[in-house]
């Protein structure tokens, strides 16, 4: 066989392989991004649900402790902030603020035995605990999706395609509570783990 033909064929095969690999990597990166978006929407839904629950909680506290104006207005502000947040970093901040406000609200509730005993408040608290747990798991799924995507974006050889696509590594959704927030323990054992 003619060596020139063999050479041309080999180079052609190599180029075809590289193009094919590039296509597959491109698709994988786009798919990973979509998956991360989808995982984020799961988190966002749970955050919104918690934000929707908070006014009820504030109302039931307000019925017993109307003079705790500061805490209640802070709750309302944090809630509006969370509902307005549309990206992961913004939501992270707003969520932390809401978490602090709710923590303070529950600390306030501690000093009202009647409030703590009311069925409405207990039910709300239970639901809040469940939502915290849901947020924690949704966040974990989001973070594992982001981990996979960031792995593709930052490691060779797929990072070359990612650079061409101008993709940046995404941020994890952090939820650590500041040290000054009072630790709140809910009735269920499992919920305590989810809050921390």
């Amino acid at each position: 066989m003619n060596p020139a033909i063999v050479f041309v064929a080999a180079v052609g095969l190599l180029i075809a392989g590289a193009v094919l690999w590039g296509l597959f990597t491109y698709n994988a990166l786009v798919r990973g991004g979509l998956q991360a978006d989808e995982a984020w929407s799961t988190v966002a839904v749970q955050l919104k649900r918690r934000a929707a629950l908070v006014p009820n909680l504030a109302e039931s506290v307000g019925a017993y402790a109307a003079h705790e104006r500061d805490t209640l207005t802070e709750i309302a502000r944090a809630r509006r902030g969370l509902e307005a947040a549309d990206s992961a970093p913004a939501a992270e901040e707003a969520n932390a603020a809401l978490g602090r406000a709710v923590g303070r609200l529950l600390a306030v509730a501690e000093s009202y035995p009647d409030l703590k005993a009311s069925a409405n408040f207990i039910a709300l608290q239970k639901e809040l605990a469940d939502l915290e747990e849901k947020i924690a798991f949704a966040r974990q799924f989001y973070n594992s999706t982001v981990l996979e995507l960031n792995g593709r974006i930052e490691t060779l050889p797929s990072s070359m395609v990612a650079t061409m696509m101008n993709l940046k590594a995404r941020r994890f959704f952090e939820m650590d509570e500041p040290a000054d927030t009072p630790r709140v323990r809910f009735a269920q054992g499992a919920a305590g783990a989810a809050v921390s």
Partner: protein
Amino acid sequence: MTARRVSAYGRIEENRRATRLLLVAFAVLLVPVLAFLTAYLGVWLAMYVLPGPIATWLTAQALAVSLLAGLICWRVLRVRNALPETLGAIPLPDGSGEALTRRLANLALGAGLPTPRLLILKDPGANALACGPDPERASVVLTSGLIETLGPRELDGVLAHELAHIANGDIRLNSTVAAILATARLPTPVYWVILFGAAMSLASLGEIVDLWRAGLQTALNESATTGEAAPARWIVLPYLFGIGVGLPATLVWPAAGRWLQAAIARRREHLADAEAVRLTRDPMGLASALTRMAPGRGPRAAGLRRHGAAVAHLCIAPLEWGLAERLFPTHPPIDRRIALLKGMGAPEPLPLPSEAPAAELVAPARAALQSAQASLTPRAGTGLVTGFLVGWGVCTALFALGLGRLSAEPAAGVAALAMRTPFGFAGAAAAYAALRVRRRFYWWPIIVMFVMGPYLPVSIASGVRGAGPGAVTLAYLAALTEPLAGAALGAFASVGFAELTARAYRVSRGR
């Protein structure tokens, strides 16, 4: 036992790689087996169903391929779509188990899965399994023994393990492998006859090899010298491959295939353990649950046991602790799994201090199970009675067919008529009893009965009159694959003589 400290991520990668290798080995071994089986089935079809020139020979081979492919597809779909209800599991009664379902929903959220259905199975032994062909139709089944013994952290570990099975597609993978293994094999008696023959006289095995080599040589020579014989090469070569490579492969297949299946299942268990830890971040919870499921902890479920091999690979803990499980373990040793889990997190004394079980669940679940109990208890004897009826119907139909043959081939027709009744009855009854006992459709006695029934006298006569030892062997094989011997051997091999006798006894006692 101690294990290297490796993070859950490392374990996940390692197990994925190992599964890929095992699957490749399974596929490589499967090819010659399928080649042999289609060749074998093709010979039967060409001899008995479509006798004639080379064109029909090809048709017979094509028919064999499509038959086998269809059978495998059917089995795979049937096993995949197996519902937990066939095990005797029931959904949790309304309004109970709210905490447990909520926990499952939250964990599913963390795994990025739709929430599976939660079912409960009455069984004193602690076990759990996942069912369903895909995540949308998945269910998680917990035994009542599990709910009663495990604390919240341990339950989390078990639920996460099952969710990991669903997310990894293990139900699909394991049941596909199991269905292929159960379908792509020789009928049991034929297998034993061939194996026995090969073991008894290795000399004749050498003869077979010589014959095969001679055939290969002839085919190659013919196609090399004459251009016209080229088509013969395309027919003969795959066929010779089927016999020459496929026969030995088929002989080792039941053992090798089962070993590979078990190895794959074990890898997937490790993988599910590691992914469960990634989800719950609590290796000690799952480790503690496994400690409580260790061997000898209480009896196993009737529902799970009856399905035996069909569901063993779906359960979190092994079903049997007997010889089969020791030879082909579907699960890694439980101590090893516990040691690996310990290597992933901060050590704690195991089992974890007994926390309050999901107690509020046990009472309503038990009540629901009690009311469902009556309909779940299998009635002994109905299998054999129905088998009798089916066998009677089948052999009546075959009797009519034999009458039809009488005009065309008097000798075969008479023989068919004479031998029809007991054979048809025994085959159908045994097949149906096997189906009832093992919940597995025992297809081949019925097929053999239908396809080869009328030809027993013919094959023996031609074998005795024919010159070569090949014809006699063929006649012998034909005689052994005949309904009576075939069905009895097959039923004994699959159900066990003792169990069949016990069933017959129970029927005779009227229970």
